[in-house]
């Protein structure tokens, strides 16, 4: 059946001139998995059936519009009922629909079979970034958009991957069945990469499954597809498909990096280093809501410049950073950021803008707080 679909669509594809300009892209991508190709073929099949029905129905209609005009001297016929005709145009569409339902069902059943996977990755949606956890490898990282604010504000020319670029890509090997387990930390998100034909909602408190098996090495980009708040348009997905050998190298690099991060927490940090690092962490994680100048967007996102918590008790400040504020948009950063990053961003906030406390919070302080 799938082979027939494929042949049918290739034949039809030759009948229309296809656009090659990316900017005027008219159609769904074929994608790089068997599933995405089948989905594309099914999409084209249904489209062409609709076009054919349209040609017949609108053909009769425009025939009447052209030839049965009063100005052409047309006299109205008197017929206004025919049970036979009604039965015919009830039964024929029904049969066409059965013709559509059969291949659709088989494709759907295949898409739902996520058993016997080679790699399991838990994908968690946050406002507004993604967390990827490789369940068998003890690798866990966040993936945040890197498009600079100056490009969004039209102050600098936009790069070709504008809004579709991240700091840490999801790396997977080709020709392996990768199973995704989707969930979310706050609101509902949806993980979508068109070229993999995978779209699934990430729902807080629940886990959804999907899978893919990528055929070609490459970088595939997608976006969050479910409205998740003000930065919904700014949480892209980048999947990098590599060979098994490159994947193994990447895994070992990730593990080495994780060790280096753990080691950094035991170093001594100066206030200058912490503030400098804190500024980077702040821009990436906090500035979206609390603004670059700490002015916030009250009442949902309070100002941090001159804020009582930021200028007050350090424990309370650490508590909010580590555990978040339940029932609000303030996420718990205890798991998202390393001890060094937490110490740096807390120190930064207490020593920037008009906040001049001069206090230094070291990674050791954060670790001590978190182990309490």
């Amino acid at each position: 059946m799938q082979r027939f679909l494929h042949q049918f669509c290739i034949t039809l594809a030759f009948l229309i001139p296809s656009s090659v300009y990316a900017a005027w892209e008219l159609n769904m991508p074929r994608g790089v998995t068997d599933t995405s190709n089948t989905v594309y073929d099914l999409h084209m099949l249904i489209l062409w059936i609709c076009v054919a029905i349209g040609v017949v129905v609108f053909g009769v209609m425009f025939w009447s519009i052209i030839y049965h005009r009063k100005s052409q001297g047309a006299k109205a016929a008197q017929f206004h009922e025919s049970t036979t005709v009604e039965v015919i145009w009830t039964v024929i569409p029904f049969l066409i629909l059965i013709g559509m339902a059969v291949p659709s069902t088989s494709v759907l059943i295949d898409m739902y079979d996520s058993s016997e996977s080679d790699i399991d990755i838990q994908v968690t949606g946050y406002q507004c970034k993604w967390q990827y956890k490789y369940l068998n490898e003890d690798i866990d990282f966040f993936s945040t958009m890197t498009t600079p604010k100056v490009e969004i504000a039209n102050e600098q020319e936009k790069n070709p991957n504008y809004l579709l670029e991240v700091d840490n890509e999801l790396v997977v090997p080709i020709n392996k069945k990768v199973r995704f387990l989707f969930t979310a930390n706050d609101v509902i998100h949806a993980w979508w990469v068109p070229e993999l034909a995978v779209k699934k909602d990430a729902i807080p408190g629940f886990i959804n499954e999907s899978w893919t098996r990528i055929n070609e090495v490459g970088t595939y980009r997608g976006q969050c597809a479910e409205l998740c708040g003000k930065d919904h348009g700014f949480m892209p997905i980048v999947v990098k498909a590599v060979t098994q050998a490159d994947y193994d190298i990447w895994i070992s690099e990730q593990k080495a990096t994780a060790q280096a991060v753990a080691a950094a927490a035991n170093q001594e940090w100066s206030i200058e280093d912490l503030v400098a690092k804190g500024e980077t962490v702040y821009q990436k994680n906090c500035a979206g809501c609390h603004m670059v100048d700490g002015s916030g967007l009250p009442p949902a996102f309070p100002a941090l410049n001159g804020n009582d918590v930021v200028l007050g008790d350090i424990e309370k400040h650490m508590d909010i950073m580590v555990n978040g504020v339940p029932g609000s948009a303030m996420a718990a950063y205890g798991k998202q950021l390393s001890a060094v990053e937490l110490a740096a961003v807390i120190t930064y906030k207490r020593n920037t803008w008009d906040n001049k406390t001069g206090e230094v919070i070291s990674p050791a302080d954060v670790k001590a707080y978190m182990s309490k």
Partner: protein
Amino acid sequence: MSEQTLTLDDHDHHEHGPAKGFLRWVFTTNHKDIGTMYLIFSLVMFLIGGMMAFVIRAELFQPGMQLVDPGFFNQMTTMHGLIMVFGAVMPGFVGLANWQIPLMVGAPDMALPRMNNWSFWILPFAFTMLLSTLFMEGGAPGFGWTFYAPLSTTYAPPSVTFFIFAIHMMGISSIMGAMNIIVTLFNMRAPGMGLMQMPMFAWSWLITAFLLVAVMPVLAAVVTMMLMDIHFATSFFSAAGGGDPVLFQHIFWFFGHPEVYIMILPAFGVVSEIIPTFSRKKLFGYHSMVYALIAIALLSFVVWAHHMFTVGMPIGGQLFFMYATMLIAVPTGVKVFNWVATMFKGSLTFETPMLFAVAFVVLFTVGGFSGIMLAIAPVDFQYQDTYFVVAHFHYVLVPGAVFGIVAGVYYWLPKWTGKMYDESLGKMHFWLSFVGLNLTFFPMHFVGLAGMPRRIPDYALQFADFNMMASMGAFLFGTSQLVFVYLVIKTVRSGKEAAQVPWESAEGLEWTLPTPLPYHTFTTPPVIEHK
């Protein structure tokens, strides 16, 4: 169907007209006055919702953030949807029903005139409350017109409570309006008019009214559950407390899908009146048209989860909703085929109402085709929450619902006002709207297929060209509606006197009434005799 002749009593005893001054409109129980108020209200909301669409399309004119911030952009998409659905389309159809149903079935007024007054006068307050959220601290709701929890509960701005209360008021108004229509149609038809002799517009509204009575309470329930979650510590939609965010979507779409048909069935009715008139030929397949309406209404209750193919339903559910949704194409197809058969071998002319009606049939069918594509679950994963969906529902709502209302207004305006509108202005309005809307919404199919998610304030560079085209189309469509506003004002103030039957072969009780229309009509019911 048996042939009918109409026998009318004389109508020359109109001892009282409307009260004078502003209070006439406050206290009126006259179906014509209330119909007028509904239609004006709908037009005002259409223009306000249209201005929000202007903001959206202006921001999307090119990549980058230019005019508004992302939070305000979300407020605009949310309010645009809510205002167009609940403020423009639904009251527009209720306005048509108020004017036309008594005239078409030979009733002196709606069955419950005081309730009719109240159901209108709730609306200005409901929408004032909804619009006031734009000026509140934290801004208006920005969680989309579908307001999925927990974005609309735990993470909502404080103004969400006002939104909930406004929805409750709109719901009360709709339910009362619908009950009034059901009661009128069951009890006040002219003697001799059986259900199967009712005009198609009355039939379409009877079915719509049942849908409204069935599902508006469901909407009320879901917003009440939200209210409980927000203020009274329940956890209907929060997994942390044992609830389920997907439960919200099931309840919302159990309302939402019939709601879609609430917005299109009365347009089917209007078009079924107009096409026979300008084809000079009876509506083809009256009985099957009625059965198709009933079939669509019944099916609308068992297809809701096709809006939720990506939430992770079990495959059995997925297949059931896919098959049920595909089935809707059958009765909808029957309606389209019957309209085409009505035109076939007719004697066609193309005055403005007919232009809008023909465009309705063509473009609604285009929206129907993308609907079939969206029904196919495995392919829907690629369409869900993209601009392809935006294109689909705007094709059924703009040239569908909105053109239906506009066609009805052009068709009956000469009877309502006693004046003829300017035909060349009407045609200009049609062609500008037609070009504008296709320029706006057709490219959205392409960007959606190419991967542009909906509800984003900024987009990747490959979507730029079609977005600019869509924005230009939207500006054209929006401004050309001002032609319509001007045309209506011009007709009322200085239109030429209209004939009693302004269209050559219009049939129906409304055309047996004199022009200008008396304030009270059918005070003695007309008798319909069957040959």
